[in-house]
């Protein structure tokens, strides 16, 4: 799999800047992982700017910061950027970096597929944003429901076409990455790294990859059929065709995508909590079982996004039941995390703060999910600001908080330097307050009847709430700015971390920080699911 080992340039290891030629051609899973993560963070910033413009537009009634057409493009670009180009891409990056090293492998199973899969991501992103230069990008929300995306109602630009192409490329890239992860985990585990000893982050990546393998193709299929309609004159989803079929295809991908964006986060939390509680994870086997319970259930719930299109009530009942059942495995994970900290010696470092911030806020997203799963209640809440609040509690309070925990936890491994603690504390508290200030009261707007995706509103009763939301959203932006400053400062001149700054349990810390190319001078022995702790206790590595 590996080509000849090149002599290791000094610059490769421990400085911020590396030669461009190295970045462009590398098949090292760690460097590719870093490029994924940087791409994700840049997308986070771009998607955040879209969101701030949207919030300015909604801050008061009857504003004209942007016109409705631009507004529709902005909300679509915000959704597409955050879901496809930030969360999924960042998580693929962190897995690309961590999965091989956590299982004691030297690289991914298919390094050149990894290289190709990564470079398809900028292609996908550039394709999408090219839409802005054809008279307007996608303007139908990130879901792009037909017939609004059909030629009859959307012929003023090629935005929809560029979006569809972009998503097809994205799906291919995701399928490549998933295949690579599964093969790597099955075939390249270190001696002694049985499946029953895999770190929970690796288990989470197995479940995520299975999901993306199953649902990536239907997504691409929906986009291809939509393009047939637009360019070849077919009638799959047109007004004369079957618009609801599009929704089925899209949500068969769309709902599992939610879990693709949160399961790796669950995995990271399962790594962070035991380390800082100084206890092993509570209920390892039930954590793994819960992951696969979620994988199975998440593929049987997609039509809960469609309770208002008028399906048979028994069909709706089925999707309602399956959706609510997801609360059971998710609950198991929650209780196990709390039990892990119980009687612990819990150190509230910045990653642990983010882990607890995740637990405190994701709970709200989970509970509002129960309301939304109930068909009668959903007919009220669907497509309102209640849903916007719910999905941000899941995607921001969930995915983003876990990503932040992961960044603060693994930054020392990736760069060899600690991510500054003082700025980190500020980063956490501003994000926690800004996030809840933005999204908690948003629930009430939905209950009062404010639909999502409206470009403006005349109702004065919604003005005060919207103003508070907009102000809080700028606190989030300030917090992200702190993160960026912290990353750049710490990467160039942060405190040197040492190999194992957290006294962790898993193999990524059993080498140098940052690890050399090919990860290990000598692959450490694996005797349990906490191999590094075993080595510390037996004195094979220093405390």
């Amino acid at each position: 799999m590996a080509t000849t080992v090149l002599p290791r340039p000094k610059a490769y290891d421990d400085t911020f800047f590396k030669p461009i030629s190295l970045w462009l051609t590398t098949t090292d899973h760690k460097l590719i992982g870093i490029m994924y993560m940087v791409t994700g963070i840049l997308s986070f910033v771009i998607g955040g700017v879209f969101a701030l413009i949207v919030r300015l537009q909604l801050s008061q009634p009857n504003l004209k910061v942007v016109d409705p057409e631009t507004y529709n493009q902005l909300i679509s670009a915000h959704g597409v950027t955050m879901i496809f180009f930030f969360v999924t891409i960042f998580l693929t990056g962190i897995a690309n970096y961590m999965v091989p090293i956590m299982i004691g492998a030297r690289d991914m199973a298919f390094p050149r597929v990894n290289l190709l899969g990564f470079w398809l991501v900028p292609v996908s992103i550039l394709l999408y944003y090219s839409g802005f230069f054809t008279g307007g990008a996608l303007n139908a929300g990130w879901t792009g429901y037909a017939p609004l995306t059909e030629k009859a109602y959307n012929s003023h630009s090629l935005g929809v076409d560029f979006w569809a192409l972009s998503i097809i490329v994205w799906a291919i890239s995701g399928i490549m990455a998933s295949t690579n992860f599964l093969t790597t985990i099955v075939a390249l585990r270190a001696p002694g790294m049985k499946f029953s000893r895999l770190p929970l982050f690796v288990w989470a990546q197995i479940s995520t990859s299975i999901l993306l393998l199953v649902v990536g193709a239907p997504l691409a299929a929906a986009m291809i059929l939509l393009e047939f309609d637009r360019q070849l004159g077919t009638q799959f989803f047109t007004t004369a065709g079957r618009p609801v079929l599009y929704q089925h295809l899209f949500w068969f991908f769309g709902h599992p995508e939610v879990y693709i964006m949160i399961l790796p986060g669950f995995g990271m939390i399962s790594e962070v909590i035991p380390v800082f509680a100084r206890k092993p994870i509570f209920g390892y086997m039930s954590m793994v079982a819960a992951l696969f319970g979620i994988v199975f259930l998440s593929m049987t719930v997609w039509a809960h996004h469609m309770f208002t299109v008028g399906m048979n009530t028994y069909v709706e009942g089925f999707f309602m039941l399956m959706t609510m059942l997801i609360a059971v495995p998710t609950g198991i994970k929650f209780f196990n995390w709390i039990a892990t900290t119980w009687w612990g010696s819990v150190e509230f470092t910045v990653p642990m703060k983010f882990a607890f911030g995740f637990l405190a806020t994701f709970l709200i997203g989970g509970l509002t999910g129960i309301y939304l799963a109930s068909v009668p209640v959903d007919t009220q809440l669907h497509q309102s600001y209640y849903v916007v609040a719910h999905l941000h509690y899941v995607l921001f309070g969930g995915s983003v908080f876990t990503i932040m925990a992961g960044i603060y936890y693994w930054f020392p491994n990736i760069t060899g330097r600690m991510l500054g603690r003082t700025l980190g504390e500020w980063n956490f508290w501003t994000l926690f307050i800004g996030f809840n200030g933005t999204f908690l009261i948003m629930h009430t707007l939905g209950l009062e009847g404010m639909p999502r995706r409206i470009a403006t509103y005349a109702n004065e009763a919604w003005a005060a709430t919207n103003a508070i939301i907009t102000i809080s959203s700028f606190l989030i932006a300030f917090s992200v700015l702190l993160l960026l400053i912290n990353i750049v400062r710490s990467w160039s001149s942060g405190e040197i971390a040492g190999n194992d700054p957290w006294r962790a349990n898993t193999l990524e810390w059993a080498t140098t920080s940052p690890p050399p190319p090919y990860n290990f001078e000598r692959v450490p022995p694996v005797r349990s699911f906490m191999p590094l702790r075993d080595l510390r206790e037996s004195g094979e590595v220093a405390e």
Partner: protein
Amino acid sequence: MTTRVFRALITFGGLVALAVALSSCDVGGLHPIFPNPVSPNGQDIYNTYLGISVPAIIIFLGVEAALLWVVLRYRRSTQPVGYVPPQVHGNTPLEIVWTIIPLIIVLAIAGYSFVELQKDFQPISNQQMTVIVSGHQFGWNYEYENGVVVHQEGTLAGDVTPFVVPTHTLVKLDFRGTDVIHSWWVPAISGKTDAVPGYDNFSWLKIDQVGTWRGECAELCGVGHSTMQIIVQSMDQSDFNRWMAQQKTASPSASPSASPG
């Protein structure tokens, strides 16, 4: 230690008070629940929402309290120096308990919701009046059985032509889509119903008081989405009959002419 427990109790008490306040009444103009429903199906949804809130609030408070307890009680600075936590790997009976109890709770919620689903979302045939509601970019048409059509063309300010129904009458709404998907939503009456092209959908309402209720389109349908405002007005039967007579004189042919769009 005592001050920490005291602080925990104060915080917990504050959370309880907040949750109770949120669930019982309006706080500072924020509405923790839908507007008071005026149609029986809306009332049933309202009650289902309240029903789900009971376990949801209990679970919320319980889990947040547990997290708070960990933060206050098990943080390293409160533990004795050199404290080594018990290396517990799990507890099968406990894990079974916290699998079974949530399972029972969600099955109860699903069952409760399913009963309400069967009650209010099945096709009906005992309606006293049927209106065909069709959505277009950007407005709604309401076609009565006698052919009278109310054209509710959208405006952002919401000063649109009202859709008029008689009180104490079970009105079936048959939804039609003519271009893209729209969604008809008046929160005080009931939930949303999508108007999907080529796909029949329905809802119903029965309003027992005279009044006017607002709503708007809930499915992104293009640049005019936010202008697709809805007004539903209910009148006594005699007022309704007078209004209907006026409509007929206004358009004597009373033919269900297609809207100019």
